[in-house]
C-alpha cells in the first residue's frame, strides 16, 4: 500500500487550502472588525455560525458547482486536487475569519482610540492591530489547517478518492475500513494524528517562542 502519496497529498492540499482560507478569512475579519457598514452585525453572526459548517455539505455544493453540468464545469476541476483545495479553503476561511475577528475587534476597541489620536487611518492601523493579534492569527491558521487535514466529507465528494491522484489520508482510512483492513486503517489514523501533532508543534516552535 502506498503511504507517502496520501500523506503528501493531504499535506499540500491542506496547506494550500489553509493559505487561501487565511487570505480570505483575515481580509474578511479585518473588514468586519474595522469596517463600519450596515449589516455588519448580521455578517459577524453568520461567520460564527459557519464555524460548524458541515464538510459534506460544502463538498456537495462544490460538487454541484464544479460538475460538468454545473456553472463552473468547463474548468474541468471536479475530481482533481484543486477541487479539494477549493472546498477545504471554504471550510477553513470561516474558522480563521471568526477567530481573527474576535481578536481584532478586541484590539481595535482597546487600541483604536489612541491609534486614531495619533492620526492612523483604519487601513494604517490594521498592520499594527494584526501584529498585536498575532497569537490569535497563528491559532486561527493552525485551527484552519487542522480542520482541512482531518475532514473527509468534502474531499471524498469533490476529489473522488482516486488512487494516486486524489486519495488523501482521510479518504484512505475510509477505503481501508470499507475493505476490512482495520489494521491499516488504524495505522493511517495514527499517521494522520502524528502529522497533525507535528505540524502544530512545528508551528508553535517556529513562531511561538517569539510571539
Amino acid at each position, binding site marked *: 500500500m502506498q503511504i507517502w502519496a496520501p500523506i503528501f497529498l493531504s499535506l499540500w492540499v491542506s496547506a494550500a487550502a489553509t493559505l487561501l482560507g487565511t487570505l480570505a478569512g483575515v481580509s474578511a475579519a479585518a473588514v468586519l472588525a474595522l469596517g463600519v457598514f450596515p449589516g455588519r452585525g448580521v455578517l459577524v453572526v453568520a461567520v460564527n455560525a459557519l464555524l460548524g459548517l458541515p464538510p459534506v455539505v460544502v463538498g456537495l455544493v462544490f460538487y454541484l458547482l464544479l460538475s*460538468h453540468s454545473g456553472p463552473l464545469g468547463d474548468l474541468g476541476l471536479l475530481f482533481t486536487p484543486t477541487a479539494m483545495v477549493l472546498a477545504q479553503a471554504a471550510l477553513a476561511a470561516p474558522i480563521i475569519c471568526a477567530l481573527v475577528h474576535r481578536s481584532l475587534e478586541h484590539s481595535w476597541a482597546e487600541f483604536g482610540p489612541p491609534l486614531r489620536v495619533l492620526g492612523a487611518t483604519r487601513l494604517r492601523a490594521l498592520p499594527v492591530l494584526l501584529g498585536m493579534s498575532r497569537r490569535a492569527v497563528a491559532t486561527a491558521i493552525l485551527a484552519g489547517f487542522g480542520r482541512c487535514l482531518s475532514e473527509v466529507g468534502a474531499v471524498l465528494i469533490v476529489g473522488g478518492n482516486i488512487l494516486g491522484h486524489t486519495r488523501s489520508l482521510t479518504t484512505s482510512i475510509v477505503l481501508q475500513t470499507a475493505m476490512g483492513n482495520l489494521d491499516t486503517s488504524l495505522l493511517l489514523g495514527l499517521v494522520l494524528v502524528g502529522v497533525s501533532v507535528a505540524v502544530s508543534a512545528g508551528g508553535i516552535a517556529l513562531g511561538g517562542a517569539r510571539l
Partner: protein
Amino acid sequence: MRRAWLLAAILLGLSGTARAESIVLASTTSVDNSGVLAKILPVFTQQTGIEVKVLAQGTGQALATAARGDADLVLVHDPDAEAAFIAQGHGILRREIAWNDFLFVGPKSDAAGIAGSHDAVLALKAIATKGVAFVTRGDKSGTDAAEKRLWKKTGINPVGQPWYRDIGGGMGAALNVAAAMEAVVFTDRGTWLSFQNKRDLVALVEGDASFINRYDVIQMNPVLHPNIKQEAARKLADWLAGPVGQREIGAVEQGGVQLFHPDADKVYVPRM
C-alpha cells in the same frame, strides 16, 4: 517566501494533472475494492499512455455521475439501471466484459438454517420467517438492486422489519456491519474474497442461477456529453473487451480463486 513555495507546490500539482492524457472511469466499489482494476489498468496505461482515474461508487451513483457529464466511461453491474441509462440517451454502447457471482454470507451459527442451500428465494423466506438479522446496503448499487430483485421474487417486503437493517453504505461497510452484528448479507464474490475482516462470517448460499453478476462497460453519448474524452474512453472500452484486457481480467486471483470471468462476446446495441 513560504507562500511562494506553497504556490509553487500548487502549480506543480496542477501541471502534474495535465501531463498525460487521462480519463475518468466511473466504476463500482465491488470492482475497485477487489483490486482488479489496480492490477489490470497499469497494463492499459503502459500500452496506450492513457492514465485511468477510477471513481469507485455504487452503480447508481456511478451512473448518476456519468449522467452529469463527470465521467468518460462507466463500468457497472446493474442491467436494469444500465438499460435506463441508455434509454435516457446518456450511453450509446454497452458491452459485457466479465461476470462473477453473488452469494449470501452470514455467521457460522446459521440461525436461519440456510447453509448449503442453492436457492435464494427459499433462503430469504427462511430468514424472514425466523426474523434473522439481515444487512442490506440500501445504496442503489448493483448489488443492492440484485438483492431487492430477489426479495421481490419471494413476495415478501422486508422494508421496515426490525431484522432488516439498511446501512446505506458500500459493500465493505455492509460486510463490516454484518460481521459485527452477526447478520446475513448479500455480497459479490470479488469483495467477499478480498475482504479482510470476516470474523465469524462464512459463505451460506451459493450457486443460484440468479446469482450471476454481470459487469458491463458503457460508452458515453458524445452528442449529449460533448466534453467527455470519447476517443480515449473508446480505447479503454475496446481494450477491456479485447484479447489483452480479457486475459488480464481472467488472470486476477485472490487466494488462488479467480475473481472475474472474462466474457466479452455479447454486444448490446441500443435502439436509438
